[in-house]
């Protein structure tokens, strides 16, 4: 067995275990930490697939920024206690069953698709920063710039929603 295969199975197991941890743990803090583990595992997958740029971005954006944001929010609101009320057991059952059914259906459908056994190419350079950067700034420069506008509006939106309702107080 090649090293990449071993790594694949290891990272997959890690990702799935982390994902289960996310939904299973009662404490949100643990959930966040599990999710970080999942993200790291996915980044590992990216590296395995020779997509280094995305791996790094994934770690920086997701594991670094977004998860820290989550942690901040949880800690600020002091939610680490297990305050979550118990959801209706039937709803839980229904959720689990439907989710599992969806998984089975999709797996069963895709397992026999004719392209399922295509072997992935290894050792290409398209995932490297150079080629992606060229594509990004040659062909996708306009969406890239527009995404900055998106960020700006998200920022403004977040501030507007998150700040105290001063507008009503002034009135």
């Amino acid at each position, binding site marked *: 067995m090649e090293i990449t295969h071993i790594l694949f199975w290891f990272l997959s197991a890690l990702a799935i275990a982390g994902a289960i941890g996310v939904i299973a743990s009662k404490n949100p803090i643990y959930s966040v930490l599990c999710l970080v583990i999942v993200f790291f595992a996915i980044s590992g997958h990216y590296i395995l697939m020779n997509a280094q740029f995305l791996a790094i971005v994934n770690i920086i954006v997701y594991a670094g920024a977004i998860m820290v944001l989550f942690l901040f929010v949880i800690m600020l609101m002091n939610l680490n206690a297990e305050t979550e009320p118990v*959801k209706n057991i039937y*709803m839980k059952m*229904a*959720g689990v069953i*439907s*989710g599992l059914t*969806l998984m089975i*259906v*999709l797996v069963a*459908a895709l397992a026999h698709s004719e392209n399922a056994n295509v072997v992935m190419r290894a050792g290409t350079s398209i995932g490297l920063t150079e080629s992606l950067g060229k594509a990004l700034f040659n062909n996708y420069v306009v969406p890239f710039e527009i995404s900055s506008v998106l960020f700006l509006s998200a920022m403004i939106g977040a501030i507007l929603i998150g700040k105290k309702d001063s507008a009503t107080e002034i009135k």
Partner: protein
Amino acid sequence: MDAIQLIYLVPLLPLLGFIINGLGRNALSKSVTGFIGSAVIFLSFCLSVWIFFAVSSEGFTTQNISYFNFIDVYKLHIPFEFQVDQLTSVFLLIITGVGFLIHVYSVSYMKEESQSGFGRYFSYLNLFVFSMLILVLGGNYVIMFIGWEGVGLCSYLLIGFWFKDHANNNAAKKAFVMNRIGDMGFLLAMFWMVSLYGTVSYHDLYNSDNGIITALSTINSHAIVGITLLLFVGAMGKSAQIPLYTWLPDAMAGPTPVSALIHAATMVTAGIYMIARSNILYSLAPATLAVVAGIGLATAIFAAIIALKQNDIKKVLAYSTVSQLGYMFLGLGVGAFSAAVFHVMTHAFFKALLFLAAGSVIHAMGGEQDITKMGGLGKKMKITYVTFFIATLAISGIPPFAGFFSKDEILSAAFAQSPVLYILGFGGALLTAFYMFRLMAMTFKGKFRGTPEQEHHLHESPAAMTVPLIILAILSAFGGFLGLPELFVNDGNEIDKFLSPVFEHSKQFIIIKEVPQQTELILLVVSSVLIIIVSIWAWNKYKKYAPSVSENGLVKAIKNKFYVDEIYDAVFVRPYRSLSTFLNNVFDKRGIDGIVNGVGKTVNYGSRQLRLLQSGQVGSYLLLMVIGLLILFIIQLFTK
């Protein structure tokens, strides 16, 4: 200018009168309305006379005038067309002539009405004449059917003219429904004809050169028997034959001149006209003719028996109309078409006269119609008395009045067919003489049996009412000379000669055996003598009428019109009504309403339940979304 080209004016003028009187019923004064109403009919009459002369001139052939396409669908072309021939022109004269006299009479008779009621009355009357003219002028069965329905409608409107009285409305409805039953037969016959021949035009069907029916020679083919029977059902309804006759006596609910119009000039003669018009068709179906004769004879006798014991002056006349119509159908049934038309004509004269005179009596009695409360009116109302007497002589068939000749012609044709028909028919004639003289005697002779107040008011009617009576009396007295039998004058039967082109073709199929002249003479003399004896007997019996209480069962049954109305009520109306109630309760309320309401309730309930899904909870929305996704995937991926 050719009179035939102006034929469209004949029905147009009454229509114009209808429109003017109908729209101006509140604006025009009564005299103007009366004048317009009568004048348009008079002008039509003058045109009809002109047309009559044009038709009777040498070398006249049947004219077919097509105006526009009335129905034009795929292969079916039904033009709006008029056909003018001898039969049409005779009917035109009867309708407009007698109609005009009735209009003039009405001006005086209806003067008590309010202004708008008066206008309404005259507009209906004009419309009635218009419809009847369309009926006889129409060049195909569809146009005839327009008029056919038109008279049905007008009879409904006029019978229910005093619609504030519920009984009148019921009578009007009865007339309408009975007519509808007949109309159904007519309609089916038309459909059958269209599907069989693709046309309903007389010209195409009966043209003597290349008519579709004329070319046929198979006798009693199923289709023709069917068509003729269905047409006869229509005639039954319109001309009040058993079993659809009950509306006619009830139609007395309308004003008396209307009864005169319905009974004499229009409406009831429509059935006769239709069969006479289709004589070629009928002559190909002797089976139907036998049915026609049988029903005609049965009606003639049955109605005459009922008339024996009626005490309402108009009811007696109504049953006598039914009975006389029966004679006409008997005439048609034995193939004596021209005799039937002749009887239509004489009947129009004396029946109009009888009704108008009865109207005069009722007018004088202040609305009283019961003859047991009359008596001795002869002294007070000389003109009415004399004219009524002439009409009675005419209807009873006493020579030489009009009814004698026409009835005799029918009866002798019946004798040629079978002596049994003759004897039965003659029995009916005796009954006719009896009840008519009973009516005469009870009304005009003896002591006055009404209230003193009524006696005080007794008076002769004004000239506008008596003049038409006199004219009609003259016609009733001498109208019969148009159809003198061979026996008296060689080639004396003018009407038969005149109408012979119309009935020429059917003579191939119907052979009327010549009755030996001696036999005919004996029959004539015997029948006349018998009728006169019966008349005198009835006259004497009822001259000094006094109400008697004793009644045996038969008399009671006759008095109650053999309970036919009650039987119809029990056999048709009640089961129908209970069936309707049943259907209403079970099918309509439970079934159809159940379905309709059930759909509504289901939707309502379903939405009520579905509303619960809109809990507003994100979790349940998510769950539903996933389930939906799942279903879509399953459909997409596993159903190929």
